[in-house]
């Protein structure tokens, strides 16, 4: 009976895995990380808002928007409204006519255009940044390390100096023949603050890694919160499993 049980579990997990182990064709580099925000736009008869991560992350670290301005990590979750924006919250924190273009009538179409590829003519401006194989084809971490870009860490409220936690974790893979993944805290804390990931996404116990198997990452949990659609995608296996051979 146990043999049968094992076989069944194996079959089930393979079935479950197959459903997930399908990477949709990647968007062109200039559209990777772009979103259409449509929580209420279409309902209110305006076009969805286009948002490009690459154009914003050139100048701001993730934590500016995802901590200070409180944007959720999932599209259409934050309660962004016109009134909030006009009151200086969310997009309005910068898009006030002083830091970035304002919320006036003349600029509606700059965001409410329903075009995921909007603004791609500006993408070549990033041609001088270090390259990678995937996502925007830009090595954002190196770009910041080499000071090619110097994204801001805050807008108004200065955070207390960061905790210099730089430990690189070695995460053993659950599958045989898959080399371990490395997790460098340093390249993450350059962009994020501790609380962006801890304790909600990752509890701080290392044994926690036991339950963030690849399948969960691929379903958009754990690493997948960012590394599917915004940070370099998981189809770039060696981005995390650097010694992986015969794969991408």
């Amino acid at each position, binding site marked *: 009976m146990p043999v049968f049980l094992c076989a069944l579990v194996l079959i089930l997990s393979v079935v479950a895995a197959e459903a997930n182990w399908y990477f949709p064709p990647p968007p062109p580099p200039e559209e990777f990380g772009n979103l259409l925000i449509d929580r209420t736009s279409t309902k209110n008869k305006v076009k969805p808002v286009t948002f490009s991560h690459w154009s914003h992350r050139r100048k701001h670290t993730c934590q500016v928007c995802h901590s200070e301005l409180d944007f*959720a990590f999932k599209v259409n979750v934050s309660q962004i409204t016109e009134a909030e924006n006009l009151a200086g919250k969310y997009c309005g924190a910068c898009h006030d006519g002083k830091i970035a273009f304002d919320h006036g009538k003349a600029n509606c179409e700059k965001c409410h255009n329903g075009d995921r590829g909007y603004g791609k003519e500006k993408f070549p401006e990033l041609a001088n940044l270090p390259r990678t194989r995937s996502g925007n084809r830009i090595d954002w971490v190196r770009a910041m390390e080499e000071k090619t870009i110097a994204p801001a860490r805050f807008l108004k409220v200065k955070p*207390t100096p960061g*905790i210099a*936690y*730089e430990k690189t974790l070695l995460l053993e893979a659950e599958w045989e023949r898959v080399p371990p993944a490395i997790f460098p805290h340093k390249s993450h804390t350059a962009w994020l603050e*501790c609380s962006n990931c*801890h304790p*909600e*996404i990752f509890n701080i116990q290392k044994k926690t890694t036991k339950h963030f198997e690849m399948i969960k990452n691929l379903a958009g949990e754990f690493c997948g919160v960012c590394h599917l659609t915004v940070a370099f995608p998981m189809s770039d296996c060696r981005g995390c499993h650097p010694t992986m051979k015969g794969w991408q």
Partner: protein
Amino acid sequence: MKKWFVIALLVPVLASFAHAQTGTKKRRPLPYEYGGVVIGNYSANAGFSPVQFDHWLHRAKYTCRLCHVDIGFAMKANTTGIKAADNMKGYYCGTCHNGKMVHGDRKIFEACATKYTREDLKRCSRCHSKGENIKRDYDFATFTERFPKERFGNGVDWEKAEERGLLKPVDFIEGVSIKRPALAVQKDFTLTAKVETMPEIIFSHKKHTVWNGCELCHPEIFAGIKKGMTKYSMVEIFEGKYCGACHMSVAFPTTDCQRCHSKPVR
């Protein structure tokens, strides 16, 4: 055979529930929602909406100790079991909300009654307001405007606001609190983090006793007899124990890591 199939199906499902807490981001409460508590042990039975209690207004006027020690509110929502009858006898909310007590230039409205007019019903909904469209007497943004800002929680640095005299929380109610000579405030101390290179934690007794006295934390949450006697980990704090009893939901949240982990590692 069928039984095994069901079990085999259930195992992965149950396993995923066990770890449901991590892996995804939750919605962060807005500044005015932070510290909000919904109390509804008996409300529905009495035909009322649950009580929406917001810490921000009360904590600007009273110390934590006053309600959680002298009056005896538990530290977890819905564990006190507040009854209308108790409020009417002058316990819990009724200690102050009796229609007689005065704070500043305002008489504090009376909570709960057995006899009431149609007009009085409006007063019920000042507390029993969960899910109701009630206009509050105090607007969060206007009320907190003058206080120093912080990044998380209510977006208010309550500690600094008190330090600067912008608020003077009441810590004594005649007939309820007992005035005894204060104990000497214990010294600040550092706690070494278990993880290497994490900055040490500076714990300030002084900052805590302003709001909490001794009794709120000792001896239940922390035995408090000898440093190092109560052993706890960050994981337990995240689960709402120890520091997490306050610092997950009411006092500044644990996501503000550096506010505690503030001493550079030598």
